């Protein structure tokens, strides 16, 4: 009997060899689903209005986003009508240049499918949105999407 007793002493180690595999699986999942935020918000994250007739925005690369809301920096005032293009606060007059710049990044054939998504705060005023819209019309960027969260009734 003493022959058998000699072998094992203490706790056997738990086999954790499969743990990295599981973690990697999760890792890949998140890597694939991640979309990196390209711009840092200069305005407070807009509180989107909710609507029921919303459509999903497809083809992320063809979407250009314009943010409207209250600037984080106090020097721009406290109204909810500041416009953010790229990384900085801008005025509606800079919208055409912004759109043309975005257009140069996609191929010619895809330009008609480009969508401008307006992410505006519920408390922004319609005037600001209309200023943007008129500028968009000037450069023929006619597809727009008013960003809204899906409301369930």
């Amino acid at each position, binding site marked *: 009997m003493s022959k058998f007793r000699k072998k094992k002493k203490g706790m056997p180690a738990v086999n954790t060899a499969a743990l990295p595999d599981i973690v990697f699986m999760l890792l890949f999942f998140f890597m694939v689903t991640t979309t990196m935020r390209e711009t840092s918000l200069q305005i407070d994250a807009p509180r989107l209005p909710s609507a029921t007739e919303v459509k*999903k925005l497809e083809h992320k690369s063809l979407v250009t986003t314009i943010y*409207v809301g209250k600037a984080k920096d106090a020097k721009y005032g406290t109204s909810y009508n500041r416009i953010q293009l790229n990384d900085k606060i801008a005025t509606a007059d800079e919208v055409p240049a912004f759109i043309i710049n975005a257009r140069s990044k996609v191929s010619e054939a895809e330009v008609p499918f480009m969508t401008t998504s307006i992410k505006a705060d519920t408390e922004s*005023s*319609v*005037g600001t949105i209309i200023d943007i819209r008129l500028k968009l019309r000037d450069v023929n960027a*006619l597809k727009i999407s*008013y960003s*809204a969260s899906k409301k369930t009734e």
Partner: protein
Amino acid sequence: MARRENPEINAGSMADIAFLLLIFFLVTTTMNVDSGVSKKLSEKPPADYVPPVIKEKNIFEVSINRNNELLVEGERMDIKDLKEAAISFVDNGGGEGKVENGVATGPCSYCKGDRSDDSSDHPNKAIISVQSDRLTEYGTYLTVQDELLKAYSFLRNRLSVEKYKIPFEELEESYKDNRANENLKNKVEFIKTAYPQIISDQEPTN
């Protein structure tokens, strides 16, 4: 000589590294899908453009003032009643439809409205015009747009269920999955032309 064993690579820290990466991606991931109310802007009219004359009864006027109150066809209204009002206006079918490519569409055969003389002639003639103040809240503006779109999707759905026994949304979905299908395409086109969404934005008041 001591017995040589195969040296084992210590993979104990691999999990730690993977966890580190995992946590990084967990934090940076944004799961929300962008969605929104899509609209197509009208093209910029040429300088000498003369807008066509539209009969008063074919225009459904909605205006929103700076206090976010609604005036519909000259009367005050709550947002919750807007959908019903829009439905009864679009679906009225009181007269002849417009002439398309020389073919008159005739009176609306699928409308279930009152066929009143003071409301719209035909869904393809009915125009909803939204006027807002520059100081109107964007949230209210979008809610109004949403209600109007709801009215249209109600009508489209009703017609679709009646004709094809399938809600319009599902019809559109199945067309998206199968773009080559002519039959589906015709169905979608038919519903869309039966109730075209004509919502126009007026210049805002100051």
